[in-house]
């Protein structure tokens, strides 16, 4: 499983030459229920008309959550996630941010935020409307994280909620499933986080630095889309790659 590596123009690593034959475009357009949205390679969705940005499954403080159970993962996941979010916010003129649930890995997460990370978060919130959608990991409003809290949010033809509903209504934008698609080429299998959409509804990739993934061929996605008739938009380093779900590999397990 390859974690998305944020490589934007100026932050490009030394020697990280462009890959031949690959276009220099870092976003694609995905239409959902008639609304044209911009999918960014960093795993965020931008709605230009509304100047609205959606990110899902940040799982902030997952590291410290596991540490409490004896797995001492590097305590930099929150900083890393917020940094990447800041990078996106600097590229689009964002007035509204929707964090689509599982924003914190557990209800104790907000209280464990390191001072620097909290400051960074407030910096991102400044001058914007920020909506924390409830997730299964963080079902209730939290203190000292700013923004407003909502179970779900309807805006025009779109409905934003954390868990996708089976055979969802047109316009549903959800997260929760952490979609990952696997494709094979020249004997190698590649797995990437992805947007999943059938133009009627969409499931967001997980954004959090430590968030795991679920293969899009898992039955859960059939439940959402009704059939194996959806497209996976894989996050590359500089652009998205679209594959029909039926062409992606299964892995049988999670």
């Amino acid at each position, binding site marked *: 499983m390859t974690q998305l590596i944020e490589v934007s123009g100026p932050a490009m690593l030394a020697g990280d030459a462009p890959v*031949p034959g690959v276009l220099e475009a870092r976003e694609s357009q995905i239409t959902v229920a008639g609304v044209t949205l911009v999918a960014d390679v960093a795993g965020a969705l931008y709605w230009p008309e509304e100047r609205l940005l959606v990110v899902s499954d940040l799982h902030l403080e997952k590291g410290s959550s596991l540490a409490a159970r004896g797995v001492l993962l*590097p305590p930099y996941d929150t900083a890393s996630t917020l940094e990447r979010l800041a990078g996106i916010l600097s590229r689009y003129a964002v007035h509204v941010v929707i964090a689509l649930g599982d924003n914190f890995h557990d209800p104790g997460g907000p209280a464990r935020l390191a001072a620097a990370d909290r400051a960074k978060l407030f910096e991102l919130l400044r001058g914007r409307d920020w909506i924390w959608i409830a997730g299964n990991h963080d079902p209730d409003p939290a203190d000292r994280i700013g923004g407003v809290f909502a179970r779900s949010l309807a805006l025009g033809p779109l409905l934003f909620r954390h868990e996708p509903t089976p055979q969802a209504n047109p316009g549903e934008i959800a997260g929760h499933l952490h979609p990952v698609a696997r494709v094979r080429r020249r004997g190698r299998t*590649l797995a990437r986080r992805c947007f999943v959409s059938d133009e009627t509804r969409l499931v967001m990739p997980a954004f959090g630095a430590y968030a795991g993934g679920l293969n899009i061929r898992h039955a859960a996605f059939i439940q959402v889309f009704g059939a194996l008739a959806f497209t996976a938009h894989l996050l590359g380093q500089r652009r998205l790659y679209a594959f029909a779900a039926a062409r992606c590999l299964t892995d049988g397990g999670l």
Partner: protein
Amino acid sequence: MSIAHQDTSTLPEPFGRWFAARGWTPRPHQMALLDKAGAGRSTLLIAPTGAGKTLAGFLPSLVELTARPSRSSLARSRTGTSGSGLHTLYISPLKALAVDIARNLEQPVAEMGLPIRVETRTGDTPASKRMRQRRYPPDILLTTPEQVALLLSTADAPYLFATLKRVVLDELHALVTSKRGDLLSLGLARLHRIAPSLMTIGLSATVAAPDELARYLVPQRAGGRAQADVLIADGGAAPAVTMLDTAERLPWAGHTARHALGEMYDLISRHRTTLMFVNTRSQAEMLFQELWRINDDGLAIALHHGSLDAAQRRRVEAAMAAGRLRAVVCTSSLDLGIDWGDVDLVINVGAPKGASRLMQRIGRANHRLDEPSRAVLIPANRFEVLECHAAIAAVAEGAQDTPPLRTGAFDVLAQHVLGCACGGPFLPDQLFEEVRTAAPFVGLTWADFDAVVDFVATGGYALKVYERFAKIRPGKDGRYRISHPRVAQQYRLNVGTIVEETMIKVRLVRSGRGGHGPTGAIARGGRLLGELEEYFIEGLTPGDTFVFSGEILRFEALAEDEAYVSRAHSDDPKVPAYAGGKFPLSTYLAARVRALISEPQAWPALPAQVREWLGIQHWRSRVPLPGQLLVETFPRADKNYLVCYPFEGRLAHQTLGMLLTRRLERARLRPLGFVANEYALAVWGLGDAAFAIRNGELLLARLFDEDMLGDDLEAWLAESALMKRTFRQCAIIAGLIERRAPGEEKNKRQMTISTDLVYDVLRRHQADHILLHAARQEAAVGLLDIKRLGAMLGRIKGNIVHVALDHVSPLAVPVMLEIGRESVYGEASEQLLAEAEAVLVNEAMR
């Protein structure tokens, strides 16, 4: 020292009588080892297989235990009182070997009526017996490195090992080349501290530097150098090794040796029992399959490799021992193990890889020392002919190329530090001194040790936020203790340094029972065939056929952690891609092959087909002189190729390929891909490298400059899948990630994800973290072979010779043939994604 003329003292009774009753005379090295033990000297015994090495190792203990004045330990254990305690610890790299040795040892003990209790302790030993062993230890305990670590992590270790007089380390040459050897060295250091009068005996096959290996056996002193005595037993008759001079056409590439199948079968039918070694599991499967296809005489030919079900492997070994088999096709799974007297021929198919490795394999044939071992090498392609030729010359000279002693790994040290804390409180400076007595850790600095302790305690992060979750904490007395009994439980589940690929059980079901999808309804059960790597199974789609367990199978479905397969009615299996040998070509053999190529006067000894091949190369292009790197460029089908011949093994070549493509990219030569084999590397692209070289736009000296191991390497490591795999292994060994985590993340697939994510985050936020150091250290010699690449770049400095050709050279053909067979552009996943997408687009538009 040679012991050919050792004083022949006599064996004490009842051993003398027992030997005499069998018509045996003790071998000189057996007597010499007895003398060494009597003099209280730790000793390294180097002897070929079949020399009675193991009995030699036990003889001193048996003699001492028999001579001891007290009541018999049998009586003591019966009455349940504490005896004189554990006397000898025997440590083997193989669990099965420990069990076999115990059986072999019990026989003389019973026949002589010795008052000695011998027991084994492995992962399979029932908990009740383990408990009893700790309370009433046997006189001799046979076990594995992991069990030693476990025993040392208990509070009663000082009691258990206080009486220990001797440790016997079997197959030491094999143990010390891995992290298991690092872990065992730390355990030995601890044992030496608990029982200061402890003596060690190391049993080893022939190695390149015996004095280095002998350091492993005794505590090292700061600034000084300590080593055990070395005994080298007579090697017996020189082996008779030949290379098959095939009547068939020699393949240019590939590793199957299919061309020589008939000749191999003929060899088997003319010998009593043949061991056929190959380098990979898939080669073993293929060869086994093909041999049965032509097995008109119905010879009993069996298959043995590490992925087969353990019970099945044991059955093959038993049939072998009973003399019921004519041949066994095997991998390194049979490099070690008990001796089988009846093997009269060893066939090594493919590249020998190293002189010492080959000699150890040859030693598996004919264990009577007075008769020569007979071996036939079967090269699978033209380059392998050169390698076989070089290896035979090396065997004739008795040259050795075993790797040097390792530098101890930090992740292993972290595991040991936690184990020590589980055993009882420790003072860091005392533990530091103890650890430095272990030979692999003799150069450890306090700063690194301190960082490792900090890692074990709270993760070792610059951001100190995990103090309250610390696993070990210093008390007021300065001693570190575990913070919770749960920490010790976790340690016990994670002990050991063998990080397996995630394996999937393979079960045989009837065809058609499989569902239509991965989670399709399928009946559970079916015969267990063995286990396959998850990545292999992941590459299959239902309906794919492949060879495993000696059968052509059809993949039906994967359900949770089991793969269901049926017998395929197909003659054309999708054989697993050749994943490269586990062991790279040794630097020593590589040098010999380079020398052989550079000396046309030596070519007459080579088979005619190979001679002709090199001759045309000489005429069309050139053959590189020793120390030279030959670089050829030529156009072919709209692309420009650059081929070089470092002979440094596939892993180092892959790393070189990654770094060269980056540099060619910067030189605007638009590289598209590369492919590497053991001998050469081919890079191709749209830009004309030959033109750029001629114009002075591309300087080969710059292209191959050692500075590629600086920034270019760093940038690549950031995204390298191989580096992530290396990091994952370090993270598991060090205990950052658990093998079996309780709770939600019990699924190993999820674990794989998280270590990659952890690597990315850690690298960006704390690049100097001790685990990243550990991963780098490992990468230098492991999957990336950076150390070897560095040595090569240094060697060829100022010695690069370029030949611009108008078409492919004979020497380049083998690596060119790998294109399409090997995965290309090893790491450029973006390129592959784009290609995969394009392929689908083309299909759709057609």
